[in-house]
């Protein structure tokens, strides 16, 4: 039966999406709006016209479910196939597995934090548009955390250092760097959080994380990680768009917002790059087959890409964060300083380290002609000699850490690579230590926040890094061993040198079995 069909107005994507999101909201009258949204004013950001918010992307839930389900189907098919075929035995080299350890310990819990943080600000902005975008990002971040945990699950069945990633992320000294980074952002106000994570991290720095990890995975035969990386990035494109829209929107609303946003950009670019020290190190030292150096990635993804962005923001009076000068000076030192530190402090890590081989060092010389041979090669050659003599060098003292980024005070003076950089500040009768001017500036802007930092070394000395019931006065009490037990580091298995480790032995054994005929 043919029925006359009324021709309805055809709505465009923007109009339709507006009805599907902002159209859902209303001006409340039974409760004061400031009680319903109590948190979006205290930071001093002034918003006069929420209607000027441009939705960064326009996915309704039905389309979201449809496309995300398609991504998940593809992703888990590959994760399953990789696990079922013992894909880990096709890796370039057993050392690669340590990048996977770094990932699950350092990043998967951050994705989870990001999920919770976006759920929080997805409840707090008083306009529907940004709330919907934030809720959707919260859901995506849950995805990223879980797909990483699932893809790495099979590695965890065979190799060390991953089983306690949740506990390690909470307590292990080096992991307090990423943990405190994200907690700093999440405990800030909603606008600071979205500038820190949505903009500075997702937009400015995400490519610097993405290129090393995902291309590195692809180069080293890790199909699972490559796939979750690509799949996650397809969401990141949306997240970057949100970050950019937030910045533009906030800057256009009121001139008083500009210095506040500039301060956050300065803080979070620096905090972000300090965090990426781990990535720089992974990229230059931990990938058996390397993709590009940290210095090269910085040139492409920061200098070129973010150059364009900051040129665009100049119209609002935003300038490139001053810390970028120091980052440029540290560019050719960062990964070397970090790897030297992790090599010496390998007792308290949950991944293995090694000295770069002759070929590795030649690559590093070529990539860092101004710094590597002069400052770092001699160190590695000396440590190689110690190892050859059966007396490998190891630093067992608890290092002094920066009160803000919580990285051990291992960086050198900008422009003076032979002098250790240390800064100090006094606050309420206590002295605090910093790795740099920029971390000290961040402290001085918010001292009440950063005096709360739980500095891992201090926690050990305060007795907070022992299992319940431990008696430090007992006969033969060994604080270092007790702290490792509290950290759930299985000494000799999770930590130490790669050469001679259980992981190295098992990988060689299993790969031998896989390749042999009987």
């Amino acid at each position, binding site marked *: 039966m043919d029925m*006359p*069909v*009324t021709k*309805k107005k055809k709505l465009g994507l923007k109009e339709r999406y507006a009805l599907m999101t902002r*159209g*859902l909201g*209303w001006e*409340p*009258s*039974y*409760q004061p709006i400031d*009680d*319903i949204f109590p948190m979006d004013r*205290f930071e001093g950001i002034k918003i006069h016209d929420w209607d000027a918010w441009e939705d960064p992307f326009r996915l309704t*839930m*039905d389309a*979201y*479910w*449809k496309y995300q*389900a*398609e991504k*998940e189907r593809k992703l*888990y098919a590959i994760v399953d196939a990789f696990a079922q*075929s013992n894909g880990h*035995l*096709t890796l370039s080299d057993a050392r690669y597995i340590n990048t996977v350890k770094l990932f699950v310990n350092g990043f998967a*819990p951050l994705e989870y934090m990001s999920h*919770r943080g976006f*759920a929080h600000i*997805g*409840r*707090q902005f008083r306009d*529907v548009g940004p709330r*919907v975008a934030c*809720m959707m990002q919260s859901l995506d971040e*849950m995805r990223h*955390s879980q*797909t990483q945990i699932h893809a790495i699950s099979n590695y*965890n*069945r065979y190799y*060390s250092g991953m*089983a*306690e*990633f*949740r*506990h390690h992320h*909470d*307590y292990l000294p080096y992991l*307090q760097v990423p*943990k405190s980074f994200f*907690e*700093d952002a*999440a*405990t800030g*106000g909603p606008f600071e959080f979205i500038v820190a994570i949505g903009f500075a991290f997702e937009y400015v720095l995400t490519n610097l994380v993405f290129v090393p990890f995902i291309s590195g995975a692809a180069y080293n035969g890790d199909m699972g990680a490559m796939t979750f990386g690509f799949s996650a990035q397809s969401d990141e494109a949306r997240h970057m768009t949100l970050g950019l829209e937030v910045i533009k929107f906030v800057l256009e609303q009121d001139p008083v917002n500009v210095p506040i946003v500039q301060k956050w950009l300065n803080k979070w670019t620096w905090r972000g790059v300090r965090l990426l020290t781990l990535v720089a190190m992974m990229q230059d030292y931990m990938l058996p087959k390397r993709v590009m150096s940290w210095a090269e990635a910085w040139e492409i993804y920061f200098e070129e890409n973010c150059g364009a962005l900051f040129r665009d923001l100049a119209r609002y009076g935003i300038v490139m964060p001053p810390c970028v000068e120091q980052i440029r000076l540290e560019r050719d030192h960062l990964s070397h300083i970090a790897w030297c530190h992790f090599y010496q402090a390998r007792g308290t890590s949950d991944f293995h380290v090694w000295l770069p081989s002759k070929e590795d060092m030649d690559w590093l010389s070529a990539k860092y002609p101004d710094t590597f041979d002069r400052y770092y090669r001699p160190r590695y050659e000396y440590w190689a000699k110690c190892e050859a003599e059966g007396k490998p060098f190891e630093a067992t003292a608890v290092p002094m850490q920066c009160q803000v980024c919580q990285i051990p005070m291992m960086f050198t003076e900008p422009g003076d690579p032979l002098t250790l950089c240390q800064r100090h500040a006094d606050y309420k009768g206590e002295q605090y230590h910093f790795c740099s001017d920029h971390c000290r500036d961040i402290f001085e802007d918010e001292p009440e926040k950063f005096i*709360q930092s*739980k500095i891992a070394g201090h926690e050990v000395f305060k007795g907070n890094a022992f299992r319940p019931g431990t008696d430090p006065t007992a006969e033969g009490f060994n604080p270092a061993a007790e702290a490792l037990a509290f950290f759930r580091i299985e000494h000799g298995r999770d930590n130490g040198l790669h050469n001679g480790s259980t992981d190295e032995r*098992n990988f060689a054994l299993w790969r031998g*079995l*896989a390749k042999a005929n009987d």
Partner: protein
Amino acid sequence: MQMDLRTVTIAPQRQTYGHVARHIGGDKPASRYQEGTIGLQTTGNQHYRPLWDPAHDYFDESRTKLKMADWYAFRDPRQYYYGSYVLARARQQEAAEAAFDFVETRGLADALPDDIRALALDLILPLRHVAWGASMNNDFIAAYGYGTGITQPALYYAMDQLGIAQFDTRLGLLLAEPEALDAAKEAWLHDVRWQSLRRLVEDLFVEQDWFELFVAQDLVLDGLLYPLVFQTIVDGDLAQRGGAAVAMVTQFQNEWAAETRKWVDAQIKAACADDAGNAALIGQWIAKWTPRAAAALCPLAEMGLGDRSAAVMDELCAALDARAARAGVRA
């Protein structure tokens, strides 16, 4: 490197992550739901108090009066992690899409009796605001709740309610012009029949105890609203009065409610079983919110059911009490 990889048997060193193993009673293979849920939220060594709530840690058990010895006693019977969640919803949205298509291409919306169309618009369109309220409240639970066991499905609930608000909107656009949405918002804001419900929704926006909010929104309000509107009025009455097309395009809402009720009940049951005080506490919350929700829904019941409304509301409240009692709540 190309390698001819024979299938070899190599012995795993362990079956799952340590924190998962400790919770499931030993090192044994864990499901993706378990690995993606158990212990995922940090519980210790939080560095800074939030600037926006200095009285609490970022993750803080005391944001609700509920007491739990084990926050991961909150399990999702559907075992949704992100992947299984979006796959389930993608299947449902495909069915919904087909229903919208079917109704649209065959002109079934135009064939609706006028009174049915009017009722569907009057009753369902303002509900998109209620759904958006439910979305906000569940996002609140996802943000400030404790432990991934309950916060994860709360976010799924929030997104589902956004999806439902959007399906309600599409129904409006199918049956009428976009101006119908304005009329519905006008009714939501000013029509006396909607004001008790709007007051309730706005009062829930300022409720600070996230588990009380869960009880009020997910158990009580949605526990009455969905059986009343989508099950009784749309699927029952409208379908028989020539409004089958409306029932077709609200099938998602009904399926969702039936599925999600099991999750809600499981949370209440887990809470009552974990701590002796919880059963009475939840009982008080139910007693506090049920009369308000029932009163707020009465005008909707009258719109759809006329004389039968009081009897139906009584039945629904009794059914809700029975659900709570089965879950171990002490009245």
